[in-house]
Structure formats: structure tokens, C-alpha cells
């Protein structure tokens, strides 16, 4: 009996050991890739399919998409990184990308990719800090005026005409314009405010280490934001998801937004008559959306992650990514006439990017989240608390300087 039991145990051990060896031999290096885009309806599925084409062509690496909503991505991943873990690859918003660099949480990519192999777009220069490359431009777009040609046949070219047109269109459930003005949508609120500030020649800093939150041009931008708020031309309280839906239903006449939004409009309402024009502000400068694809410094699979990066930035795969995202991607992708006809806004947004600036506080990139919070609270004081733009921005300057000095 003992011999039988011993025999069974030996056989079991042999089978298990062999199975373990075989599975280890055929196992792929699993690389996790966290991005908010995977959580988006439509675009998320297309980008997952794009990653699947990589996985199908690989014997030793598999990329696993991890969907995290935009609002919680940075907090989730930062907490994981602080604990020594986190996904291998991350698509970071520009604010979070710059915040992660000084903490040493991003792997320098200089030895993992050969940048001479790729034709990166101009904003790629922001992916390097102190001569080191910490990320690759994943997708990028500028801001411009989206307008419903049925409601506004000719786009306004100056702020006064814009206000007049928006007022004329605000009637019977239709609004002339829409933007964000609540802390519940902090990131989007910051983007909208920054477009107004840039459009009125304001900058959050002088780029040489001095904050300029209360400079006359910034104050002019905030005053314009307030003028729109008081003009009763926006659906107050409607979040971005709601007013974008209203736009493609023909209930919003104009909206300054990025190229991704144009793609969303087109996807949800292919027959919607809309066009893109420069934002109706005195200065051409507008915000720049850019996301960075980075490798987590805690990653146990940096070489496998780099293999994916090198695949992702090959011209054919960049072209496929552009189709999936509906916005410009990290490299220069020549468009066919068919692609241009199908997405006419891409050319307009490519032009808008010539004057685009990142929506971070230059020189204070890692402190942008804190400055952002302070500025937006003061903008709310202007919109709802009765404070004058100058008074509120003076306070923002004082609070931000104190916070930055810590």
C-alpha cells in the first residue's frame, strides 16, 4: 500500500513539475498598460483592438490594457507607484506627467528607444526634461472653435462678435456656448479657463521662475470668462458629457474644445453640420492637449514595455492609432485624401497646434496641480462670489507663491 501511495505522489509531482516548466516556457511577459482612453465608449474599444494586433504578432510579450477613468487615473497610479508598484506602461495627462518626473517614478527612455527612427510632432519637445526623455507623445491636439453651421453660418472672429452671436442663439432650449465652471470637473475647468487666459495673451508664469497669475493679461482672460458666465448664454450646471450631447443634438451653437471632441461629435452624429475655426480671442495662442506614454520606474518588464513602444511608433501602427483615436498622434502621419475627407477637422486642429501651449504652469510643472486648485477656486470667487478678477487673481498669486515656496 505504501508503495502505491509513494508511486502516486511521485507521478503527481512529476506531472505538476512538467506542467509548470511547460507553462513557464510558453508564458509571455505580461505588460500592463493603464490609460483612461480604455474606459471611453467607442475609442476605448478601437485602441484595445489596436493593442490586440501587437499581441497577435508577439511570442514573448503581451500587453494588457487596464481601464481607469480619467478623473481617478493619476490618484490611483500615483498611490500604486508610491507603494513601489503600478502598471508598467501609463498614458499620463501632461499635468500628471510633469508631476511624476521629479519623484523619479518614470523610467528614462533614452536607452530604450532610438528617437532617430521616429518623426515626432513638435510638442514632443515637452517630453524631455533636463535633456532626458521620460515619455513619448501618445496623442495630441489643440483647441479651436467648433460651431454648428446651421445655427452660426459664419464663425465669429473676435470676442465681441462671439458674445453677440452666442446671445442671439440662446433661446428655446438652445444655448449659444458651453464651458465648464465647477470643481467637480476640475481638469476640464482648468483647460477651459486656460484657453481664455492664453487667448487674451495671458500666461500663468513668465517661464523664468515667476508666477504671473495676477498680470493684466491673465486678469483680462478671467474677466472674459466672467463675461460669458454673466451673459446667460451657457447651460449652467451641465457637465461636459451633457453639453457635448446637446451640441450633437443641435442645442449648442459654439464650443471651444479639442480635436477629440470633434471626433466624438462626428461619431455620435455623422450628419451634424459642424466646422472648426480659430477661437474668437485676441491672441491665437490656445491650450495644447498632450498625453505622454511612459514606463513606470517600478516596472519589472522594462524591455518588454520598450518593445511595445518601438512597435507603437512605427509609421503603419501610428496611422492605425490615428484612426482609432480620431486625433493627432505622437508622430507625423501623412493623411490620405480619403482620411482627410472623413475627418476634415484634423487639418484645422493641426493648424491650431502651431500656436498651442501646454496647459501647465511653465517652470512649475510639478506644482501645477496645486496652482490649478488655487486658481480655479479664485475663478469661482469671480464667477459666483462677487470678487473682481483683479482682486481674486491677486489672492491666487499670494496663495500660490506661498504654496510653491513650501
Amino acid at each position, binding site marked *: 500500500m505504501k508503495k502505491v501511495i509513494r508511486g502516486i505522489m511521485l507521478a503527481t509531482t512529476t506531472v505538476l513539475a512538467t506542467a509548470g516548466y511547460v507553462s513557464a516556457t510558453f508564458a509571455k511577459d505580461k505588460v500592463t498598460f493603464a490609460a483612461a482612453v480604455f474606459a471611453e465608449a467607442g475609442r476605448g474599444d478601437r485602441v484595445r483592438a489596436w493593442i490586440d494586433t501587437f499581441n497577435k504578432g508577439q511570442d514573448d510579450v503581451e500587453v494588457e490594457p487596464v481601464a481607469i477613468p480619467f478623473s481617478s487615473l493619476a490618484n490611483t497610479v*500615483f498611490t500604486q507607484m*508610491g507603494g513601489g508598484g503600478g502598471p508598467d506602461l501609463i498614458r499620463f495627462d501632461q499635468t500628471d506627467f510633469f*508631476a511624476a518626473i521629479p*519623484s523619479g517614478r518614470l523610467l528614462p527612455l533614452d536607452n530604450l528607444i532610438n528617437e532617430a527612427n521616429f518623426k515626432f510632432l513638435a510638442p514632443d519637445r515637452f517630453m524631455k526634461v533636463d535633456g532626458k526623455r521620460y515619455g513619448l507623445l501618445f496623442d495630441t491636439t489643440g483647441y479651436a472653435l467648433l460651431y454648428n453651421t446651421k445655427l452660426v453660418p459664419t464663425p465669429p472672429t473676435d470676442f465681441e462678435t462671439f458674445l453677440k452671436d452666442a446671445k442671439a442663439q440662446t433661446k428655446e432650449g438652445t444655448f449659444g456656448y458651453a464651458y465648464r465652471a*465647477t*470643481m467637480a470637473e476640475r481638469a476640464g475647468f482648468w483647460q477651459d479657463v486656460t484657453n481664455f487666459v492664453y487667448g487674451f495673451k495671458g500666461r500663468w508664469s513668465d517661464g523664468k521662475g515667476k508666477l504671473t497669475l495676477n498680470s493684466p493679461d491673465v486678469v483680462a482672460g478671467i474677466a472674459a470668462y466672467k463675461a460669458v458666465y454673466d451673459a446667460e448664454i451657457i447651460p449652467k*450646471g451641465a457637465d461636459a458629457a451633457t453639453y457635448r450631447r446637446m451640441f450633437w443634438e443641435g442645442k449648442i451653437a459654439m464650443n471651444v474644445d479639442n480635436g477629440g471632441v470633434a471626433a466624438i461629435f462626428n461619431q455620435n452624429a455623422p450628419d451634424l453640420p459642424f466646422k472648426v475655426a480659430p477661437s474668437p480671442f485676441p491672441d491665437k495662442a490656445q491650450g495644447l492637449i498632450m498625453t505622454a506614454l511612459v514606463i513606470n520606474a517600478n516596472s519589472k518588464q522594462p524591455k518588454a514595455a520598450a518593445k511595445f513602444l518601438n512597435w507603437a511608433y512605427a509609421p503603419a501602427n501610428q496611422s492605425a492609432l490615428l484612426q482609432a483615436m480620431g486625433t493627432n498622434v505622437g508622430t507625423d502621419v501623412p493623411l490620405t485624401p480619403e482620411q482627410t475627407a472623413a475627418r476634415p477637422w484634423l487639418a484645422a486642429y493641426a493648424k491650431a497646434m502651431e500656436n498651442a501651449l501646454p496647459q501647465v504652469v511653465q517652470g512649475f510643472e510639478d506644482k501645477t496641480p496645486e496652482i490649478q486648485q488655487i486658481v480655479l477656486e479664485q475663478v469661482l470667487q469671480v464667477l459666483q*462670489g462677487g470678487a473682481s478678477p483683479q482682486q481674486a487673481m491677486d489672492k491666487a498669486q499670494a496663495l500660490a507663491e506661498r*504654496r510653491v515656496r513650501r
Partner: protein
Amino acid sequence: MADLRPSEVRLEGNSWTPYLFAAPVAIYLILFQFYPLAQEFYLSFTSTDLLRPDDNPFVGLDNYAFLFEAGDLHNVLWITAIYTVCCVVFAVGFGLLAALLLDAPFIGRGVARALVTIPWAAPSVAVALVFTWMFNAQYGIFNHGLRALSLPFGAENWLDNPLLALPAILFTTVWQIFPFSSVVILAALQGVPHELREAAAIDGADRFNIFKIAVWPTIQPTVFMLVLFVTIWSLRRFDLIWLMTQGGPIGATNTMVIELYRQGFVYRDLGSAAAIGMIGLTVALVVTVIYFKVTLAAERAQGKR
């Protein structure tokens, strides 16, 4: 055995037996309560970034000083106090009223008792999203109602208005939590001896006096316990407020827990977040001590001690 004093009771087994029984709970408390608490206490005296938790230089009382000077801690404490007091008063008050109504005999009482628990059973996230829409300026049912009544309001986005945001959050919170109070008090009301009510009625007491003499003394400990629970829960409520306003607009709904999250995850400043946590812990301890003092005084007044 009943006549023996505790010092005269001899336990069976060796002298380590009691420690053996207490050890699992003690180990659990040390590992999962006291150790993190001690670490948080230490963290509050350091400058620690969320992304670099290992690098935490000692800064003494700097975090506390910063919160009181540059931060908005006075406002945060004030909002927390208003929110907590209103939650306790309205949630326990409406709970008591609802329990008294549901205790009285009427047709459909069983259905009414079941219906009243629905808000408590609803997930906070769903409640927050539904109420956010209900408070919306253009599409919200509250503004539709106000406009229908031709009241001088109706164009306000409640959650974006610094004057209306806190009442709106309080309304939502009380709507969700008062059923818990009512169910607990209703259970306590079942313990009120029927003879006591009858005796009071025979003595000519009206409804209010019956409640005061016969009902209140029985349910009072339960109500006091509810007050403590609702106070502690209100001090630490996060989900509903964060989902509806994130502490805004302009700090109008910024309670201590929301500020803790903002410091830790918006500013990534774990040191300041820990300092707020310690202040919050102190407030909770003070509330608990007051509760036990009041309870003790009430018991002494009733001659129970």
C-alpha cells in the same frame, strides 16, 4: 457563586489563559489600528509626497502651522461642525418622528415600514448622481417645482451656488440616513412596556406626556447612541460630498475628510493630510468623551448609578 466578589473568583486554567483569549483581538488592534495610527501621527510631523513616501524629512509642527495659516482650516472646521450638527439634529429628529408614526397602528403599516428603509438601502454613489441631476438648474426637478410655484428662485444650479450647496448636500444626506435612525428607534419603541403607556393614559396624561413619562426614558439610551453614531459618521462622510461637489463651490462643502483627501491626493502632500487626520481624530475623541459624560450624567439623574 453569586455572592462572591470578583477578587474571590478563581479562574480555571493557568495564569496565561486570559491573555491567550485576548491575544487575537489585541494583535489585530495593534497591527491594523494602533500601528497605522502611530504612523499617521509621525507622518503629520514630516514633509511627505504621495509619490515619494519613503522620503519623509521631519518638519516638526510645520504642517499644522501651514494648515492654520495658509490653509482654510478654520472654514473647514466650521463647515464640518455645521454639517455634523445638522445631520444629527435632522436625521435623528426625522427618524424619531418617522418611528413614532410607524409605531402607531394604521392600515398599510407594514408596507410603510418597508418603504421608509429604501433611502438607507440605496448606494451612496447612485444617490449622489440622482440628486446632482435633481439640483440641476435647467433639468432639475427642484427648480421645475420652484418655477411652477412662481417662487423667486428656479434658475439656480444648487450645487454651484455657495449659499445653496451645503443645504443641498445636507438635504441629500438626511434623506439617505434618517431611515436608519427611524428603524433603530422603532425597534427601541417595541421595548416600551404597554402597561406603562396604559397607566399613564389612565392617570390622564395626554400624548405628549405619555411620550415624556413612559416612552422617552426607555428609548433614550438608543437615541443617545444614535446621536453618537450619526455624529461620527457625519464627521467621516466622504462619498456623497465628494461625488456631488468635491468640497466646493469655494469651500462651501469642504469638510475635514474632503480636505484630508484634497491635501493627500490633489496636493499629494501626505504630511498635511496626516495632520488633518490627527485633528479629525482629536475632534472625534472629544465628541466621544462628551457623549460618555452626558450619558453618565443622564444615568445618574435617573438613579441608575
